[in-house]
């Protein structure tokens, strides 16, 4: 469940966008020619002293309320501090002051996005797209997500299609859209898009795989099996479908079936850690501890961050009376999750 449910794209996107902004800001339109006070604030920002910059700017703004540019810098400073609600407030003001402030518009859209105010994010992001229709793919991605979450599905579809260079009415566009909706946890809409993709092109690879994954999320295991089998009928070399099928069989106590498909999956892709984890789970339940241990170690060697592999290894050692090794593995599982939770944020 956990392996399938993790949706870490928000973290990745945050890092990507922050780094892109750092580059763009270095060449920002706002040249340092306005005022000594603003120059000081910018200098502090360049040194990463965001809190000091905020304090400076707030004092400065109190004394020179008429000066343009303060809201922009305050918005940037709060954005860099991850204070998106505050950032949005100042960046909105900055954009109102200068509707050609590209950086303010982009950061405003992102600030609204990161604070979950997606309806408000859309106008700013649309403006950014109009300025740089091809150049800023990250803003386009965020805009498409905003459309999707706010149920503006047609615009989301068109934007994702543009982003990936496919026709909006193609099966590929619907499949891409479906995947993006899965990542947002919008499962019914995702299913609808994937089914649309398969209507356009019944032989499309990866559609049934995605439907199978959705069925697993929803606890509908018979349906999941059907979808994975349909995927394999179209795409017999799809190792991911075999692995997912192995997981479902494990949940249904069909260990022999599980082992069979997992071995096929490993033969196709010997570098995918999840297959070894699931095989380790099956073998552990069967009491074949040496083989289970071997597979779980293999999974960890491929993915040291697999807390499930560490956890099962811990249980395996516990059942063998190897308390020290058990504690070590279970602590590793706990530590990995703590790190993942810290970086992912949110609930689940």
């Amino acid at each position, binding site marked *: *469940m956990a392996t399938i449910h993790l949706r870490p794209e928000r973290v990745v996107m945050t890092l990507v966008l922050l780094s892109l902004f750092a580059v763009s800001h270095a060449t920002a339109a706002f040249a340092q020619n306005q005022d000594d006070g603003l120059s000081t604030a910018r200098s502090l920002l360049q040194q990463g002293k965001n809190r000091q910059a905020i304090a400076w700017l707030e004092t400065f703004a109190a004394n020179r309320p008429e000066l343009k540019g303060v809201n922009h810098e305050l918005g940037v400073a709060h954005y860099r501090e991850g204070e*998106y609600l505050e950032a949005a407030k100042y960046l909105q003001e900055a954009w109102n002051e200068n509707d050609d402030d590209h950086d303010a518009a982009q950061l405003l859209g992102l600030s609204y996005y990161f604070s979950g105010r997606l309806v408000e994010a859309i106008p700013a992001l649309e403006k950014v797209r109009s300025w740089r229709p091809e150049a800023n793919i990250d803003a386009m991605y965020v805009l498409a997500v905003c459309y999707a979450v706010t149920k503006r599905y047609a615009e989301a579809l068109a934007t994702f299609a543009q982003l990936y260079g496919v026709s909006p009415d193609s099966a590929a566009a619907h499949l891409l859209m479906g995947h993006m909706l899965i990542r947002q946890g*919008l499962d019914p809409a995702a299913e609808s898009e994937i089914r649309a993709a398969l209507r356009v092109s019944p032989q499309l690879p990866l559609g049934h795989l995605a439907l199978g994954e959705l069925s697993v999320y929803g606890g*509908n295991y018979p349906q999941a099996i059907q979808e994975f089998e349909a995927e394999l009928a179209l795409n017999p070399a799809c190792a991911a479908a075999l692995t997912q099928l192995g997981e479902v069989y494990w949940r249904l106590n069909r260990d022999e079936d599980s082992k069979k498909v997992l071995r096929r999956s490993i033969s196709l892709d010997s570098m995918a850690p999840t297959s070894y984890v699931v095989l380790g789970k099956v073998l552990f339940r069967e009491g074949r501890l040496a083989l289970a241990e071997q597979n779980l170690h293999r999974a960890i060697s491929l993915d040291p961050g697999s807390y*499930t592999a560490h956890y099962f290894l811990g249980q395996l050692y516990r059942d063998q009376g190897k308390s020290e090794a058990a504690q070590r593995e279970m602590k590793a*599982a706990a530590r990995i999750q703590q790190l993942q939770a810290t970086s992912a944020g949110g609930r689940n």
Partner: protein
Amino acid sequence: MRTRAGWILFLIWQVVCIPLWARIVVSAQDRATQIAEFRDIAQKAGLTAANVFGGKDTSTYILESTGTGVAIFDYDNDGWPDIFLVNGTTVTGLAESAPTNHLYRNNHDGSFTDVTASAGLTATGWGQGVCVGDYDNDGWEDLYVTYYGKNRLYHNIGGKFEEVGETAGVAGNGRTWGSGCAFVDYDRDGYLDLVVADYADFDLLHPPAPGKYPTCLWKGIAVFCGPRGLPATKNILYRNLRNGHFQDVTLSSHFDRTMGHYCFSVSPFDYDDDGWPDIYVACDSAPSILYHNNQDGTFTDVGILSGVAYNADGREQAGMGSTVADYDGDGHLDLFRTNFSDDTSTLYHNNGDGTFRDVTYQAGLGTHTRYLGWGTMFFDFDNDGWPDLLLVNGHVYPEVDSLKIGIDYNEPKLLYHNRGNGTFADVSQVAGPGITARTPARGLAVGDLWNDGRLSAVVVNRNSLPNLLVNQTKYPNHWIDVRPVGTRSNRSGIGSRVSVRTTLRLQSGEVRSGSSYISNSDMRLHFGLGVENEIQSIEVRWPSGLVERFSDAAVDTVMMVKEGTGEPVGAAADGLHKPN
């Protein structure tokens, strides 16, 4: 210790008798269509006070989302269980007619009378959870109510309550958000001690706004912040000093030495059958805790190593409620926990060696992933001798309805029927409108409200009226309710292990305060007996270590068993004896 011969007999019984039992009981599952008819009679029965807990249509802060608990207990010693519903307030406060908790007296005729004022329970505030126990052994069950703010201990003086939390030393610091609680005699001195689970340190004067941090987003939209990002706090253990006062022993007992935090329900149970009560605490977005009683006044959190902190994949879940029973009849107490949406609830099978295995999928409980579970109780609704499972659900984000993602704010309850073979059948759709009706449910308590062997359920719904779910379906099965009364042990009998032996079955249960979601069910132990109409014996292992047999039990009755009045069975060197 179970002897080798005992083991062999036990195995023979497992192999031969369980299938026989399964053939002769009249199980609800045998009925082709409607297997139960749970109807909500709360309004008709007089449970008319609506719950107040934060904003009705929005939840700006997590404090407004978690709802309250409920207790079923006999406050006036008339032999009939009464109902206590905890109430909250709103962020803006309600200057006039501020909501209070409500105590409803059982009129013995299917109705209840609100006796809150005459019982002295008209306090207001951010009420949360409730637990029951006779902490001073005076024969009257007392109440402990947790708050966001100072917790309250209500001393029951002949059916009137006096608030003594501060003087008794259990009010807390007033800053911490208290949640679940349970009375438990952890040092087995005959006096009930008190466990209080804490959710977080929450500053309502400076709360984070929705969307302020990445922890304040859910499926891309701004929602209230938490629990991640909120300052965690420790759970509290109070030792009863036997003079009306308690001592905070959190640090000396090592209760604070745990990875778990953001905790809710408390379910004490002797998971390793050593006679010393251990304590399970369900935690939200963190590993859940199993405090192992070291028998020397200290505890060790063995949740992770024993296998009840995470799910089968080793993933932490958002634990809410928990319940304990021997669902498969192997003599060991098992554990069930409700969790957040987009996840399954979790059933942990007790392996009998101090470890557990997550058998959620194998037991058929891994199919509902959309509901957000809160209160849960094992209860044998058809008296076939196998504990069934009731879960009550409701989402925390009112915004979820606008997303149209197949998850709703108001959710139905789930009823799983125990097939008697280690698996459960989802019978929610054929168990009556009380189960299928959608509500924002939170607390749950179950009990035999009319001493007729028919288990009912009381549900707290956030900012709504409560439910009183009564099963209208009659079953020909027999039953017995057992009420242990301690003399050397605590008077409430909490922690007593009771075994009921019939021709074909040996069932066991344990008296427990707390459990479910920050609630307290009828503490009399209910055993469904199927079609068996004779009880061979009832054996009680008291917290004092005394083991007694009571041979005069009749089916279809409520039986009080008083410590020291049965036939002593013997005691092991450690003062314990395990029925075999």
